[in-house]
């Protein structure tokens, strides 16, 4: 075995939650290793970052009472006692601090408004109105609350790439009318993909072509642009594989209209940009990003109905390139660990007979109870709009983000969890995906850094306790 990897804090996962946790711990002075097995849900995300939707919003009233972002999060905590916001109710006051940190630490890649203000309102790729506290700047520029007048919905006249521009514009007008937003939506079908070899290309390939030649897109839109004043042009989220800002500036200059991207659906190019941008920021911030799977040497992977938490983990943490290559694993020596590997896609929660957290074998909670292998059909519902209990499975944590055991006691003072791995949150149903990842990641990163520092000094406690004791917590 080679020399061990060592740091103050190990963050397992490098999606939105893991990256923010790593950056927060780094800012607090800790040395950090972020280990990711692969890309996960962040790379598949829309490019918007939602904290919580308005509690009064409904299909008939898409914007509800237009409460502030923080009030929406507090309301979610009240309505859903199992939700991570409820577990962190006492700390929701730090939401603004976390969002500001994310904007700053990601170098503006993720932008958030003030949580005292209402959500931005974006047109979803399916014509609904999506409330979002932040996201990629190129997408947030499409905030419909800031628009007065006519919005052009640009389509590429190619079935399958995005929703048809005419359908999208018609849906936008209808939902905006329900929401009390006075704006007119006009479809603009440009022929960029019609007369070229582009029709066969996938989304990311289209994005690469447009990024290489934005003038061609501008010319194509100009040909289709009706002779009327537009306040905003919304483009399919395939305008660049890398940084979309130069493309948007060229389009704005040529067309004389403000331009923005729509949030993406499945096969998201903005999601890729977000994931790659976060990884770039981790490297720039001095976080050591390693690829591989974290596991405990000697851990018993044999299926068992009841979890067997592995308390003696400190000397047995290992990193291998894959599950099959565990024999060549490297030792990992850290003072604190943050679990941010997401849920099923990221590998933070697995199901082998029962749902389990694969590193420490912590209990996974489903609908308020520890899962002991109930039939998966009991955790799912046939109608996709119903709440899917399995999608909200995960680790229950205390106010310091420490995972709890079955009896309610924290597993270990040095282990924290954040993001989609937390129990009680179904990102699709609750509208709290990357926003929750950012908030919980920020808190967990700070807690882990404080714990690592306290451990170095031989003291114990959470970030708050360490701060009280003058242990140097940020």
């Amino acid at each position, binding site marked *: 075995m080679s020399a061990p990897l060592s740091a103050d804090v190990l963050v397992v996962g490098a999606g939105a939650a893991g990256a923010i946790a790593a950056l927060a711990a780094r800012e607090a002075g800790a040395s950090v290793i972020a280990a990711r*097995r*692969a890309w996960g849900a962040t790379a598949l995300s829309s490019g918007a970052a939602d904290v919580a939707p308005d509690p009064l919003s409904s299909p008939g009233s898409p914007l509800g009472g237009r409460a502030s972002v923080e009030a929406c999060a507090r309301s979610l905590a009240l309505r859903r006692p199992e939700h991570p916001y409820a577990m962190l109710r006492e700390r929701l006051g730090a939401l603004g601090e976390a969002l500001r940190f994310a904007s700053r630490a990601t170098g503006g890649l993720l932008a958030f408004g003030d949580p005292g203000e209402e959500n931005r309102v974006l047109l979803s790729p399916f014509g609904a109105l999506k409330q979002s506290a932040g996201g990629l700047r190129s997408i947030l520029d499409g905030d419909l609350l800031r628009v007065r007048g006519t919005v052009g919905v640009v389509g590429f006249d190619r079935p399958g790439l995005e929703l048809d521009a005419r359908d999208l514009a018609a849906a936008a007008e209808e939902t905006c009318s329900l929401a009390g937003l006075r704006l007119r939506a006009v479809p603009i079908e440009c022929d960029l993909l019609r007369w070229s070899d582009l029709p*066969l290309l*996938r989304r990311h390939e289209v994005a690469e072509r447009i990024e290489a030649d934005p003038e061609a897109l501008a010319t194509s839109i100009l040909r289709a642009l009706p002779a009327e004043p537009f306040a905003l042009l919304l483009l399919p989220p395939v305008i660049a594989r890398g940084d979309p800002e130069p493309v948007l500036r060229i389009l704005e200059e040529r067309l004389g209209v403000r331009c923005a991207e729509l949030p993406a659906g*499945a096969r998201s*190019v903005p999601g890729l940009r977000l994931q790659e941008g976060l990884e770039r920021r981790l490297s720039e911030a001095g976080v050591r990003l390693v690829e591989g799977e974290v596991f405990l040497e000697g851990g018993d992977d044999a299926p068992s109905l009841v979890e067997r938490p592995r308390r003696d983990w400190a000397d047995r943490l290992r990193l291998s390139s*894959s599950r099959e290559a565990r024999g060549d694993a490297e030792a990992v020596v850290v003072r604190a660990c943050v679990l941010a590997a997401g849920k099923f*896609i*990221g590998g933070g929660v697995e199901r082998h007979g029962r749902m389990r957290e694969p590193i420490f074998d912590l209990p996974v909670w489903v609908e308020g109870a520890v899962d002991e292998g109930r039939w998966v059909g009991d955790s799912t519902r046939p109608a996709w709009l119903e709440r899917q209990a399995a999608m909200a499975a995960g680790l229950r944590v205390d106010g310091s983000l420490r995972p709890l055991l079955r009896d309610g006691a924290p597993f270990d003072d040095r282990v924290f969890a954040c993001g989609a791995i937390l129990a009680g949150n179904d990102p699709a149903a609750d509208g709290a995906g990357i926003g929750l990842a950012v908030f919980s990641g920020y808190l967990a990163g700070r807690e882990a850094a404080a714990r690592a520092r306290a451990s170095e000094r031989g003291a114990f406690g959470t970030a708050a306790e360490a701060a009280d004791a003058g242990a140097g917590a940020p």
Partner: protein
Amino acid sequence: MRLGADLYLAWRALVVQPLRRIFGKVGRGEACFLENYGPEGLVPTPAKDKAMVAAASRCISCGLCDQIDGQLGAISRGDYDGVSLLPRQYARSSVELVHARRAVEAIDPERYRAAEAICPTGVPLVALAGWLRDRLLRARSAAKELPDGVRDDARAAPHEAGGAAAGR
């Protein structure tokens, strides 16, 4: 009519087949399997193949691998439309693999390293690509071992009969 059919089956089962077995007219095991199913492109599935099919079944069709596929522009789009086809379609059945043979023969497994590294569920794309090429060879050699009259039909993959897109 039913009685006649039952009597015929009984005659085959109790008299003809035992006699053919005794006098060596019936193949056994893999040879028999290949004789019966080889022309259709169906090859035996040993334990290694089963493990690879199980690994391929971990694919959740997220599409991330397609977005950094090193060969997407290198092979004609009519033949190949992304590495996710390997676990999602090509690995499913050797019978259908012949439909995709132009793509499978053109792929270079080593160019899937980057795509494999970002697969959320750890599908071994490099090994899978190598295995598919091997499986295609086996399927085609199974067809070649047939008598001349049968071989021509078997080797004419549906792809040449206008089924180029069938593998996609």
